């Protein structure tokens, strides 16, 4: 065996360094071209969507009323009113969803990374995977059967939030888990060595270290649930007026505002649903930027 390999290796091959290998150069160029083409193809729809939405929706947003007024008393064919009711509805729903989903998600992730061993941890991890794969319509129908069919409550914004919680938890768990795993074990060990109990180590060392990553994950999860439409269609009938009470009455949201005017052909409604689409994009983008800023500030202070 050893002699064989010796034989095949020992005659020194013509060194590729001696003369330029044209094949390599060609391959390099081909790969470069392929990568750039793929990048361009990926960018085209993004730019196209942004261009379409901005060119069609910007008009509505330039009117200051858009940010301060609701659609109350406005019909599809009259111009005017704003998206305030829908913006505030989306924000309220996102806030409630975050308040419920973030603690559950973060604590689950802490369990999985810091404490979980054996069967239970594997089961939890597996369930989170399954939850990730649950389509939003299924989550919405599940809450509908629970909230409306079983308990006989009315469809309200809070029920929408419950469905969104189901969608947001796995996102938060997974991103937090990744972030906690990135925290170097040396930090934990150093803390233990100083006699700090485990829970305090997690509170004071692990979580602050991973803070920026966790926040980014939460904001990404929020951005995802804010655009969800299926739970709204099933559980959250829209309103044209401002409603701040998540437990009573219909509450507007941007996705349902877009959907509600979608089948109208008149210009006023057309402007409004593109405007609502652009507003939603801006909100989600603002969340992402906020996430970036928070993580940057956090890094500076470290």
């Amino acid at each position, binding site marked *: 065996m050893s002699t064989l390999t010796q034989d095949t290796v020992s005659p020194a091959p013509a060194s590729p360094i001696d003369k330029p290998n044209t094949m390599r150069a060609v391959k390099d160029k081909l790969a470069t071209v392929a990568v750039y083409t793929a990048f361009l193809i990926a960018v085209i729809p993004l730019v196209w969507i942004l261009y379409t939405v901005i060119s069609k929706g910007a008009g509505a947003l330039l009117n200051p009323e858009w940010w*301060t*007024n*609701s*659609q*109350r*008393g*406005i*019909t*599809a*064919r*009259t111009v*005017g*009113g704003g998206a*305030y*009711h829908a*913006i*505030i509805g989306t*924000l309220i729903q996102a*806030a409630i969803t975050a308040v419920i989903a973030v603690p559950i998600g973060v604590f689950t992730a802490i369990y999985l990374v810091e404490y979980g061993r054996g069967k239970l941890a594997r089961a939890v991890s597996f369930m989170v995977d399954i939850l990730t794969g649950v389509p939003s319509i299924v989550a919405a129908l599940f809450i509908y059967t629970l909230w*409306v069919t079983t308990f*006989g409550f*009315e*469809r309200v914004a809070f029920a929408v939030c419950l469905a969104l919680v189901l969608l947001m938890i796995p996102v938060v768990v997974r991103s937090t888990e990744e972030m906690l795993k990135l925290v170097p074990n040396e930090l934990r060990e150093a803390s233990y060595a100083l006699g700090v109990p485990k829970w305090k180590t997690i509170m004071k060392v692990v979580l*602050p270290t991973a*803070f920026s990553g966790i926040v980014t994950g939460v904001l990404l999860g929020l951005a995802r649930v804010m655009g969800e439409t299926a739970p709204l269609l099933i559980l959250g*009938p*829209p*309103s*044209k*007026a*401002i*409603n*701040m009470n998540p437990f*009573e*009455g*219909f509450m507007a949201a941007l996705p349902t505002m877009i959907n*509600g005017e979608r*089948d*109208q*052909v*008149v210009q006023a409604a057309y402007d409004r649903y593109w405007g609502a689409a652009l507003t939603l994009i801006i909100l989600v983008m603002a969340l992402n930027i*906020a996430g970036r800023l*928070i993580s940057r*500030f*956090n890094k500076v*202070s470290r």
Partner: protein
Amino acid sequence: MKLPKHVALTSVALAGALALTACGSDNNSGEGDTGSDTGSSVSGTLNGEGSSAQKNAIDEAIASFSANNPDATVNYNATGSGDGVKNFIAKQVDFAGSDSALKDEAVDGVVETDQAAERCAGNPAWNLPLVAGPIAIAYNLPGVEGLTLDPTVLSEVMLGKIKNWNDPKIAALNEGVELPSTAISVFFRSDESGTTDNFQKYLSGSAPEAWTAEPSKVWPGTAGEGRTKSDGVAQGVKNVEGGITYVEWSYATDNQLGVAQIDNGAGAVELTGESAGKALAAAEVAGEGNDLKLSLDYATKEAGTYPIVMVTYEIVCSKGLDADKTTLVKSFLKHFASDETQGTLEEAGFAPIPAEIATKVNTAIDAIS
């Protein structure tokens, strides 16, 4: 120390959110906050759901109602008649909008009227006709205006038996009009629709030999192309020369489509608010007492009557809602039924309900307690 920074950031965000919540306004009337001129304004929230055919009409009514009553909010969610009735029965909404009255015969073992009575704490639910929408026969034939069709020819066109626009049967109804040989492209509703139901009721009522299918919310024909929603069929006709469909009037006018005149035997009748109103004036009340279920005479030969109309109802509890809701329901329906509101509906493509029926509707609304 990191925590203060997080706290600071969070409080900035919270303050921003609070500032945002403080400056919203529901007042779109352009007047001051005291937009009320009636003096007797009501307050509260009323939720309705149902027919998309009456969406534009009820939106007009809600708009003027909100202007008169700054503290009252009426929501209408246009998800379709079936969903509206279902959610009304399930106590999810306070009233339903429906293209067809509640059925008093058993379907799959359940009787809608009984279920509705149960929802209203043992009191019957009433069908109140508040919106009348003519169904337009919309077509796309550049250069041809005022096309005339009769129910038999219309049935054959919609079933695909007549294939070209210059067919002798169409030409016989349109003397002096130059018809192109363009192929006819039929567009129909592929979703379940009250419009489909009412259009078929008209065809089978006025041309029973030509239209043999039992009217239902599903289109029975196979010719042509199915599209979802009123907007879908209207867009279809707009994009295809030679296209024809049945659609609520407002969609035909919004898309600038040709609207056919209908000859039911007494000459061609153009679709106007007045001609459609005549068909409604001839409608008979089929319900009992204050239940104003209407039955229309589709085969009417009355001159100047446009026969293809559909009536959409608001379905409300005669009794059994709590006091605040009752006041609000009555006040909103009164406003909806008033001459003033009904008068504004023609602009949106609807026909006002005739005075005689409006009187009965008003009596019924007064009787809600």
